[in-house]
């Protein structure tokens, strides 16, 4: 009788311990940072555009040079509540001026705040987890060169039970994809395209459908999805639906012109603004990768 009780208590303790283990986000191992080159801001600028930081973190309505002022404040309405992008300018009080590169790495690769709490996956760390540490270090150097902004970060408008950040540990365990979606030994241009599409460019966040918990359905990778902002749908860009040539895709990513010379609006206009700033071979790499994605009608 006592033996059975002991087993039950033991199991309950294990269960509780396991649950608690998910409430705080583990930090990346420190030795991974030892071999890095010091961050290069010029390379970091390329990472910045590839990752699209300004598209979410600049102030609402910002255009041109104002997009480099990462004051935050843009609202992202989802089924789980409305999230507000934080201030990630180098301001030491309102922004992330006090962060070391390892803090940026923990945020981007593990969805972990400096105090150990989880970030909501509205911040696409499920994609950014693929970023190399060197790219993070370079990005950190570039972010530090941008203008300071004093706008305080706005609290998310998220109701119970999603307001409990500790629960995100379970979400991460269940829904953060492990490894690449398109696997295998890829030629260099396709591999670079995979890094941009699955990683920094986080294209799947809009182009892949989600399950009820908001996790990506990676079996339907880039198969199209409802527009996260409510209106319309985001298209299927697997080869079953996207019949554009590589040259068409490359031209689109630079100019926003479709093969019929319509011009991209909405969120893709933002993507084109970012990807127009990258070297031409990066746009070609994205096209090469898209041709390799499993066709899904």
């Amino acid at each position: 009788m006592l033996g059975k009780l002991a087993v039950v208590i033991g199991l309950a303790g294990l269960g509780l311990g396991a649950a608690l283990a998910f409430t705080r986000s583990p930090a990346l191992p420190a030795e991974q940072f030892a071999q890095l080159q010091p961050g290069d801001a010029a390379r970091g600028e390329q990472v910045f555009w590839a990752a699209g930081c300004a598209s979410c973190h600049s102030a609402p309505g910002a255009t041109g040079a104002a997009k480099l002022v990462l004051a935050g404040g843009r609202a992202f309405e989802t089924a789980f509540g409305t999230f507000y992008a934080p201030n990630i300018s180098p301001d030491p009080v309102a922004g992330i001026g006090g962060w070391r590169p390892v803090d940026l790495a923990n945020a981007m690769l593990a969805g972990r705040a400096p105090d150990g709490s989880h970030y909501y996956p509205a911040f696409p760390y499920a994609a950014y987890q693929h970023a190399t540490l060197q790219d993070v270090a370079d990005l950190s150097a570039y972010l530090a060169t941008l203008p300071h902004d004093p706008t305080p970060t706005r609290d998310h408008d998220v109701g119970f039970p999603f307001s409990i950040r500790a629960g995100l540990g379970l979400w991460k365990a269940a829904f953060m994809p492990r490894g690449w979606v398109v696997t295998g030994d890829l030629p260099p241009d396709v591999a670079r395209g995979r890094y941009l599409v699955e990683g920094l460019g986080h294209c799947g966040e809009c182009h892949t459908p989600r399950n009820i918990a908001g996790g990506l359905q990676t079996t339907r990778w880039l198969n199209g999805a409802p527009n996260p902002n409510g209106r319309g749908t985001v298209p299927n860009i697997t080869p079953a639906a996207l019949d554009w040539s590589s040259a068409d895709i490359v031209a689109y990513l630079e100019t926003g012109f479709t093969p019929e010379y319509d011009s991209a609006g909405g969120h893709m206009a933002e993507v084109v603004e970012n990807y127009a700033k990258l070297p031409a071979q990066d746009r070609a790499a994205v096209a090469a990768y898209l041709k390799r994605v499993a066709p899904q009608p």
Partner: protein
Amino acid sequence: MKKLTALILGLGLAAGATGLAQAQDNSKMVEDAIKARKAQMQLYAFNLGLLGDMAKGALAYDASAAAAASNNLAMLASLDQSRLWPQGSDNMSVDNTRTLPDLWDNIDDAIAKGRATAEAASAMAAVAGTGLEALQGQMGALGGSCGACHKAYRAPAN
């Protein structure tokens, strides 16, 4: 008394009929404007198509064809558009347009974006006939100017 009633009724009908006539004229004016501005965009696409296809290597570069198309584009983009965007021609008021009411709420910005497109088209016309690389070099700016207005003031396709 009957005469007064008849007069009031008559005036009322006349006023109503005038209002109705104005509403009909307005809706025709809105339809005409929408048709005309879509036609203008299609002319943009027709001329852009030649330039873009040369830029991406789908069409052999031809200096005089590129010069002609880019001159067309510059002329089209500089047409006076003041009658193309009447009040009531937004996608909340009528069905066959994707233009958002935001355009009228931010009319100065919309006009500035129109001007930027005209400038980008002029910049293209200045170089399109001089060489393929020069043409390619201007495609990004041209696309960006079209995209800026669509991003702000056009609803998604579906």
